[in-house]
């Protein structure tokens, strides 16, 4: 089963058991990349108006009503409007009043060709707020695990999705070498690009560990992450699909505090994305990851 099919099945079962899913243009062409079951409002699939800011509040109200809403935001960049009531109410409700407000925010990133705001990931704006957890699943098992976690806990969860994950029907295991040059910690679609980079680097006898980061917040460096890093000669790189001044630096910081290695970051470039292909601002490509790895190795040797 692909990730898209997994999400669709999860949503269908949720609606059948009294839950709701809501968002804008859900029933439009494509049903959000095939992730939304072709159901109706009577089934619990709620079409919102195009008011992004109010939409977040309506999702919060449905959560307070005990409906465990799946709140679908088709482009992560739209979160700049949608986030207000998710992070300021749903995330704080339990701390403030002891009232849980569990919303499952499906936030879909895509890669490029869509201009200055909407494309790529924006999970960094959520990771800085207390009371909300942030996950970036890319495989069917990771998505299922995220959903099970949501249904067995009472916290709001921001799920940083990427359209490139929708056709994925396999898992992405970590790669750990006995003596690696460097350890990569990629996030979201950066995981696919990092995997390609690792294969290319291997051809040049540069050995990389690859530790996939799925849970962005709370982020707890695991023993196997730290062991892999400790065994790497040149430290590590967190590869993000958001701007670097966000969660990637937080994760790098946490890993460095728990180790004696330097961990660098690589994410979107610090500029706006344009529409023309050469002006776009895409997640680090395999080539860019390879270049960064080689630079670090060169610097360290120097």
């Amino acid at each position, binding site marked *: 089963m692909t990730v898209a099919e997994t999400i669709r099945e999860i949503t269908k079962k949720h609606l059948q058991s009294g839950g709701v899913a809501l968002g804008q243009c859900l029933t439009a062409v494509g049903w959000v990349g095939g992730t939304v079951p072709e159901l109706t409002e009577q089934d619990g699939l709620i079409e919102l108006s195009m*008011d992004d800011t*109010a939409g977040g*509040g309506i*999702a*919060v109200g*449905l959560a307070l009503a005990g*409906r465990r809403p799946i709140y679908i935001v088709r482009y992560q960049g739209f979160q700049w409007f949608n986030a207000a009531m998710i992070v*300021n*109410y749903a995330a704080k409700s339990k701390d403030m*009043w002891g009232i849980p407000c569990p919303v499952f925010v499906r936030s879909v990133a895509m890669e490029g060709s869509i201009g200055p705001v909407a494309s790529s990931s924006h999970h960094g704006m959520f990771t800085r707020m207390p009371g909300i957890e942030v996950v970036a699943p890319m495989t069917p098992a990771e998505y299922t695990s995220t959903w099970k976690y949501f249904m067995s806990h009472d916290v709001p969860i921001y799920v940083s999705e990427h359209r490139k994950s929708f056709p994925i029907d396999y898992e992405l295991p970590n790669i750990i070498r006995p003596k690696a040059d460097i350890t990569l910690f990629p996030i979201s679609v950066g995981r696919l690009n990092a995997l390609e980079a690792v294969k290319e680097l291997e051809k040049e006898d540069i050995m990389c560990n690859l530790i996939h980061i799925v849970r962005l917040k709370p982020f707890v460096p695991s023993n196997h992450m730290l062991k892999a890093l400790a065994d790497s000669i040149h430290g590590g790189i967190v590869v993000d699909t958001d701007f670097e001044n966000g969660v990637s630096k937080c994760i790098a910081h946490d890993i460095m505090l728990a180790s004696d290695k330097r961990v660098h970051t690589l994410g979107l470039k610090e500029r706006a994305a344009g529409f023309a292909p050469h002006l776009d601002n895409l997640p680090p490509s395999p080539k860019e990851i390879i270049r960064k790895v080689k630079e670090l190795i060169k610097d360290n040797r120097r």
Partner: protein
Amino acid sequence: MIPESIDTEGVLEIFRKICLIRYFELNLKKVYDAGLMPKIPIYLSVGQETIAAALSMIYKGASLFGQHRGHGIYLAFGGSPAQLIDELLGLPTGCAGGMGGSASIQCPEIKMFGHDGLMGTQVPIGVGYAIGTGQTTITFMGDASAEEGYVLGAIGYAATKKAPILFVVCDNGLSILTKKDVRRNWNMADHAGFGIATMDITDDPWEIIRTGKLFKDQLPALINIQTNRELWHAGTGRDGQPNEFNRFNVTKNEIAMAGLGTEADTIEKEMEISIETLWNQRLQLTGRL
């Protein structure tokens, strides 16, 4: 004029609630000004007591989404005055365990949800709650919050989905001290109803009851209620007497004209004494007096 449809018991019950809110807050002002409580921001509804008092008579059991000026809503709909005092004193026995203070009052027992501090968020959240539960819900806002884009969007969405929600705009014509007519050239009842039932009225409690009853079975609906706040936007200061009318005195006079002056005087006196006693008890218990 008190309508005949409201019996003596009803008239006196409304007045009792008005007095409860008024004397609770006048005591709060006294305690705050004397430095007997933490200097947190407080938002008083003295002068606006009739709105929550009257609506609580019609919408018993409704779920409530207020904003920062919520003491009156909490008290009118049955929240414990002692727990509100404790909340304002920052105690764990407060209705929000001290987290809410004056501005974020919540009380599950009366289905009152806390507010997060961002103006007007209670409106879309209330709409979502009304859709999710199918239960009658009231959301209160000021005339300034009503200008938030997401408030207007949420009213439009409630109209589209026929959510069982009453929108109540407490309209004192001011955003802090900025007058409404310099902020907008439109009004809620005429321009922001999106096809739902709307009414623009004063805070005459009898008129609120009449309109509340009228709208009860045709939600969603919106009532814009013109009112006067006697004290500052935040804190206990006073800019002067209310601009146009003192609703408390007007209401009391109407009750007297209906032949219930003695009963009203008794209620007011009893409430004044009981609330002052309660405040003193809570202050003494916490070593503040």
